[in-house]
C-alpha cells in the first residue's frame, strides 16, 4: 500500500498550479461571469498547449498519454483557480464518452481535435426537473436525427459537439451531434455560475450519429458520469482548499475587538471543521482516483463517495467563507461569490449530492454485509 502520488505526478500538479496562478487569475473568472462570453478562449488555448485536455487520452489518438492520477491533480488545480473554461464538459464528459464508446473512426476523428482544444465537447443528459438519470430520457434519436429539448446543458455555447443521451426505440443510445449544424438551437440561460454557463438546446431533426451500440446508452452514460464525478470531485476539492486559504488570509488581517478575527475560537473551530471535511473528501478522492487509474469496478462506489464528500466540502467552505469575511463577503466586488457560485454550480452539475447518496446505497446494498 502506498497512498502518495509519485514525484512525477506532483511535478505535473506543480506545473499546473504555476501556470494557472499566472494565467487564470480570478479576474479572468470574473470577466466571464460578468460578461456575455461563453468562456475564456485565451486560457483555453493555453491549457490545450499544456496538454491537459488530452492528459488521459492515449497518444495514438493525439493525447498526452498520461493517466488518471495525473489528470485528477490537474483537475484539482483547475478547480483551485476557478478557471472559466469548459474543462469539465469537454474533458470529463465528452472526451470520456468518446473514449469509452467511440468507434475507431470516431476516436481518430475527434479525440485529437478535442485534445488540441480545436473542438470543444459537451454532454447533454438533463431534460428539466427531475432525476439526472440516463434511463429516462425523452429526447429521441432514430439512428440519424435528434428531436426534443435538453435542459440544462453545460457549456453548449462554447462547444462544437455534444454527446446526447437519447431514447432510441425502447432503449437509450448516445448520439453525437454537431451543435453548429442544422436543426440545433442553443439558448443561453441565466446561470447560477455564469463562469460555467448553462443552455437550453432544442433539436429539430438535427443530424446525428450513434456513439456506441444502440440501446447501450444508459450504461455508458452511467459509466461516464462515475468517472466525471471523480474528476469533478478533484476540482471541487481544489476549490475548497483555495477557499479555506483565502478565508484564513482575510480573517488574519481583519481586526475586531483589538485582535484578528481569526483568533476567535468560534471561527477557528469552523475553519478546522472545513479542513476536516476537505480531508475526508480528499481521502475518498485518493481511493477513487486509484480505482479510475486501475480500471477497477470499485470506481462505482468510490465515485459516489467522492462526489458527495467533495460537493459538500466545497459548499460548506464557501458558505463559511462569506460569513467569516463579514459584510464585504456579501459584495459583488469581493471574490467570495465566485467561489460560492462555483461550489453550488458544480454540486448540481452531475446530479445533486443527494442523488449520488442514493446511487451509492443502491450499489452498496448489492455488496455490503449481504
Amino acid at each position, binding site marked *: 500500500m502506498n497512498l502518495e502520488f509519485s514525484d512525477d505526478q506532483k511535478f505535473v500538479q506543480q506545473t499546473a498550479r504555476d501556470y494557472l496562478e499566472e494565467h487564470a487569475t480570478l479576474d479572468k473568472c470574473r470577466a466571464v461571469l460578468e460578461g456575455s462570453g461563453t468562456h475564456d478562449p485565451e486560457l483555453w488555448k493555453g491549457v490545450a498547449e499544456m496538454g491537459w485536455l488530452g492528459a488521459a487520452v492515449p497518444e495514438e489518438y493525439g493525447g498526452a498519454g498520461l493517466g488518471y492520477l495525473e489528470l485528477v491533480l490537474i483537475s484539482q488545480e483547475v478547480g483551485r483557480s476557478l478557471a472559466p473554461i469548459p474543462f469539465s464538459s469537454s474533458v470529463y464528459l465528452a472526451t470520456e464518452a468518446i473514449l469509452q464508446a467511440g468507434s475507431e473512426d470516431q476516436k481518430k476523428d475527434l479525440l485529437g481535435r478535442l485534445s488540441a482544444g480545436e473542438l470543444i465537447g459537451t454532454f447533454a443528459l438533463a431534460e428539466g426537473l427531475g432525476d439526472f438519470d440516463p434511463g429516462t430520457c425523452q429526447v429521441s434519436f432514430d439512428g440519424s436525427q435528434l428531436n426534443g429539448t435538453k435542459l440544462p446543458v453545460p457549456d453548449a455555447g462554447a462547444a462544437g459537439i455534444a454527446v446526447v443521451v437519447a431514447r432510441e426505440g425502447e432503449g437509450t443510445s448516445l448520439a453525437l451531434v454537431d451543435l453548429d449544424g442544422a436543426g440545433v438551437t442553443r439558448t443561453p440561460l441565466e446561470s447560477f455560475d455564469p463562469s460555467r454557463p448553462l443552455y437550453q438546446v432544442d433539436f429539430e431533426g438535427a443530424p446525428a450519429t450513434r456513439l456506441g451500440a444502440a440501446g447501450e446508452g444508459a450504461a455508458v452514460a452511467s459509466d461516464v458520469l462515475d468517472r466525471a464525478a471523480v474528476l469533478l470531485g478533484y476540482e471541487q476539492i481544489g476549490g475548497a482548499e483555495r477557499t*479555506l486559504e483565502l478565508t484564513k488570509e482575510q480573517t488574519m488581517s481583519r481586526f475586531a475587538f483589538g485582535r484578528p478575527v481569526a483568533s476567535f475560537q468560534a471561527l*477557528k*473551530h469552523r475553519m*478546522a471543521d472545513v479542513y476536516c471535511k476537505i480531508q475526508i473528501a480528499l481521502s475518498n478522492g485518493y481511493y477513487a482516483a486509484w480505482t479510475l487509474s486501475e480500471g477497477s469496478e470499485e470506481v462505482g462506489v468510490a465515485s459516489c463517495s467522492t462526489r458527495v464528500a467533495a460537493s459538500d466540502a466545497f459548499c460548506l467552505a464557501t458558505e463559511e467563507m462569506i460569513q467569516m469575511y463579514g459584510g464585504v463577503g456579501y459584495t459583488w466586488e469581493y471574490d467570495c461569490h465566485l467561489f460560492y457560485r462555483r461550489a453550488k454550480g458544480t454540486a448540481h452539475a452531475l446530479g445533486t449530492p443527494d442523488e449520488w*447518496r442514493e446511487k*451509492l*446505497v443502491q450499489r452498496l446494498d448489492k455488496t455490503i454485509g449481504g
Partner: protein
Amino acid sequence: MNFDDTPQEAEFRAKARAFLEQHLEPLNPDEVSPNLLGEREDEGAIQKAKDWQATKYDNGWAVLTWPKEYGGQGMGRLENVIFNQEEGKFKTPAAIYGIGHGMLGPTLMTHGTEEQKERYLKEMARGQVVWCQLFSEPAAGSDLAGLRTSAVKDGDEWVLNGQKIWSTGAHFCDLGMIVTRTDPELPKHDGLTYFIVDMNAPGVECRPIKQINGGAGFNEVFFNDVRVPAEYRVGGIGEGWKVAITTLMNERVSIGAGGGAGRTKDLFRLARECRKNGRPAIEDTAVRQRLADAFITSKGLQYTGYRTMSAISRGATPGPEGSIGKAVGAPFSQELAAFAMELQGVMGGVMDSSVAPQDAMWQESYLGSPGIRIAGGTDEILRNVIAERVLGLPGEHRSDKGVPFRDIPSGS
C-alpha cells in the same frame, strides 16, 4: 499510489494470518464486529490479554514498530496496519496495551536514560508488566500543565503528594508515568517533572470510578508521601512538559485510524433487519441518505489514517494532521450509534442482548462514545490543535502566560 498490497506486503499478511490462525479463533463473518469499548475487564480477562501478548512476543509478533533492541521488530507502520487488520478478523482478548505500547514506550525511547530503556522496554513489550498514564487531575485536564501533584526532592528520592484522576487501567497496572510539579514558583509549563512510578509503592491508593456505561475502566489515584527513587525521573528536572508532549503526540497518532470505520457493514445489516413504514428500513429514503453519509465518513477516516501511515512510512514525522482521525472519528462514532438506535425504533431503548439487535452493540457504543470524545483531547482541544498547528491560525488569548504558577487564578 497503490491501495493493494505489494508482493512483500501480501507475503507478510499471509505470514501474519498463519500465525494468528495457530493461536486464535476466527470471527464468524456474520458475527457483529467485536465491541470496541471493553472497559469491563475482570482479572480473568486481564490474564488472557497478558497471555496473548506473551505469545505474540515469543513468536516475534509484538510491538512491530519498535526497534529490535527494545523487543520490537523494527517494522514500518504499514506492516503494523496489516497485522492489526488481520488480528481484527479473530477473537482477541481485551486491548489493554494501547497506552503503554502506543504512548509510554515511545516516550521512554525518546527521553529515557539507557538504563531505563534497558530495564523497562522489553518487559513492557512482553506485556507481563502493564503501564498506565497518570496525567489528568481534578483541576487539570485540557489544561494539563495546570497540574498540582507535587514532587519534592528528599535525599536520593522524590516524595510525591497529590491526586490523579481518569487514569485508565490504573487498577490493574504495575507501573505508571506521571507528570508532577516540582517548582510552583515558575510559570506553569516550566515547573514540571516526569517520573516513572511504581503503582504498588506504599502511599499509592487507587479507586476505580464507575463510568456512565457501568464499566469502571478508569480510576482516581491518590499519592500520599510516595517515595520515588531519583533514577525513576524521565528527562530533566523542569522538563516534564516537553516529555509529556511526546506522550501526547504519540497518543494522537495511535488513536489515528480508529472511529467506527469498520462498522458500516453492521449498520447495513441492521437497516435490512429493522422496519420502517411497513418495509425494511433500508428502503426508506431518509435512512438511505444517512447510510450513504455513514459510509463516506467511515471510508474517509480509514483512508485518512492510511495516508498518514503512508507518509510516515516514507519518512515524514507524525504531525498534528493526525488529529483529524479523532476530531472527526469520535463524534462520528456517537452519531453512528444514535442512527443505529433510531433504526431500532422503540427497541432502541432495550439493552438486553437476548432481544436487542446485534448484542446491543449500538446502545453500548452510544454510552461509550461520549468518553471517546473526551479522552486524549476533547473535540474543542482537537479543533484548537488543527486550527493553530495545521492551519496556522492565532493561538488562544490566555491569562496564565509568564505568571508564576502560584498566582494563576483557578476555580477551586
